[in-house]
């Protein structure tokens, strides 16, 4: 059941309608319908393999890079369907950025990790300024300002992840997708990233996948709970169980499955 009242009345940043994703001939996620409101943080939670990453990758068409993946249904972004033939996924990905589960800085200097995205997108402004501003926003400037020419790989995991966030915001996206951005980080780095998400919310719309219930309740305004059900023949298909304000999902969910999952009584 999807609670419509939660899906705030303003024009949503993203809106998925009847989204189905297949890998080859296997249906991985079925009939997802949800709206992601502007300047909110939406958390995706649910057991492993229920399709959270799969749905997330639809939002910036990263699934296009998986040869077997196929998407049906629509995702509207500013009134156009992302999957319309006229949409160029390369252009789209500049406007909908992504941070991955494992920090993946490029084997380049810290400076060029940030500058790369700006250069390929034809940024004409002052590059030094952009690099500094992005690193500041990602709360990592003080740690790296004296070693901008050193390799991004020489940073700790937590710093690498904030560098990747800086890299994502450097190209001024409208939406940032984060797939378990803290799963490889220690509690302190996690806290820093969470504070960062709070900051970023002022300007960006954020969708975050997480396995950490406290994290979901700390950072998100809305939470979508996904689950998977077994089909005949042993395969599993993921679906959206419930989507509502985070407080409702955690304290007063409509579905028993949600209640069981968020309270740790699952499976």
């Amino acid at each position, binding site marked *: 059941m999807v609670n419509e009242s939660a899906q705030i009345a303003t024009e949503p940043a993203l809106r998925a309608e009847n989204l189905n994703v297949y890998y080859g001939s296997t249906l991985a996620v079925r009939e997802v319908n949800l709206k992601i409101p502007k300047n909110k943080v939406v958390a995706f939670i649910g057991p492993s393999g229920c399709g959270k990453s799969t749905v997330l990758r639809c939002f*910036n068409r*990263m699934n296009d*890079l998986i040869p077997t993946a196929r998407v049906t249904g629509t995702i509207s972004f500013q009134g156009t369907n992302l999957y319309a033939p006229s949409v160029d996924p*390369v*252009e*789209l*990905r*500049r406007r909908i*950025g*992504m941070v*991955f589960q*494992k920090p*993946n*800085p*490029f*084997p*380049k200097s810290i400076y060029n990790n940030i500058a*790369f*995205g700006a250069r*390929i*997108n034809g940024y004409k402004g002052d590059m030094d300024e952009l690099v500094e501003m992005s690193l500041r926003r990602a709360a990592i400037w003080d740690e790296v300002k004296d070693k901008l020419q050193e*390799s991004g*790989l020489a940073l700790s995991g937590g710093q690498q992840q904030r560098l*990747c966030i800086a*890299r*994502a915001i450097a*190209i001024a996206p409208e939406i940032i997708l984060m797939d378990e951005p803290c799963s490889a980080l220690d509690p302190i780095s996690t806290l820093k990233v969470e504070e960062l998400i709070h900051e970023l919310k002022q300007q960006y719309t954020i969708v975050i996948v997480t396995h950490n219930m406290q994290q979901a309740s700390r950072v998100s305004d809305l939470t979508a709970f996904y689950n998977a059900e077994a089909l005949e023949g042993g395969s599993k298909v993921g679906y959206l169980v419930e989507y509502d304000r985070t407080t409702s999902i955690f304290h007063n969910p409509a579905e028993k499955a949600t209640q069981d999952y968020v309270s740790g009584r699952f499976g």
Partner: protein
Amino acid sequence: MNSEPTRNDSLWQPDRQASRTSEAIVRTIFGAFALVSVLTTIGIVGTLIFEMFEFFQEVPFWNFLTDDQWTPLFPTAEFGIFVLISATARTSTIAVAIALPLGLFAAIFLSEYAGPKTRQIVKPLLEVLAGIPSVVFGYFALLFVTPLLQSFIPILQGFNALSAGLVLGISITPLVASLSEDAIFAVPRSLRDGAYALGATKREAIVSVVLPAALSGIVSSIILAVSRAIGETMIVTLAAGQNPSLGLNPFVPIMTMTAFIVQVSLGDTPAGSLAYKTIFAVGMTLFLLTLVLNIFSFWFVRRFREKYD
């Protein structure tokens, strides 16, 4: 029924002594085999060094470096090694100038652009190319490539560095291609995804992220190809000639270091004669050149390899 299994120590009697003995035997056997390869290397290098010293008893080191003729079998013998080095440099440079772009583009095409079907056809073709005996390449250069080139370049002589170098380049292309492809393939998917997620096109992702990440592997594949080109014997002996000539002209017959060693080894040179010692001096020069390249490659890979976990 008693659910608690009773512990019976008398059932557990490993023969510790027997396993210790067999461990020792196995260790000795493996050690002996390892020793054989070490001893072989020491023997070869030792012989090279010993005969080279003998050579420099008779020929001053300075002459070896500065003579502009290479005529060790003439009554007025001269030993300017740079005559041979300039020949090897000509064939190897041409070869690398061919193999580097061909191999690298093939590697990029195979790993990034080719679909599975194309790969299935092109990969085995490259392996076939790598498996062609170099004597066949040599004859191909001499009897096909040279006459073909002569129709464009009339001054090209029957034996020359150009066609030997070109064919040598073709023969080492599969090496560059397959090692570079391994290096490109080893670049983690997450890096490409990172580039695409920033709005990179395929070309931008390859040029700015994938190739720099694979750089150390690509460079070491090229250096390996250079050592292969320097040490290659059959193609250059057959197609480039037996005619020592100093300089950079690729159109004339030349004699590479390896071709000289072949020439003297095939003639009946008495052991201990000066000509005999000469091949060790040349062999040592070859060995040192490739050693320096390998050390450089080793250093480069250590210095520039990126560790991803």
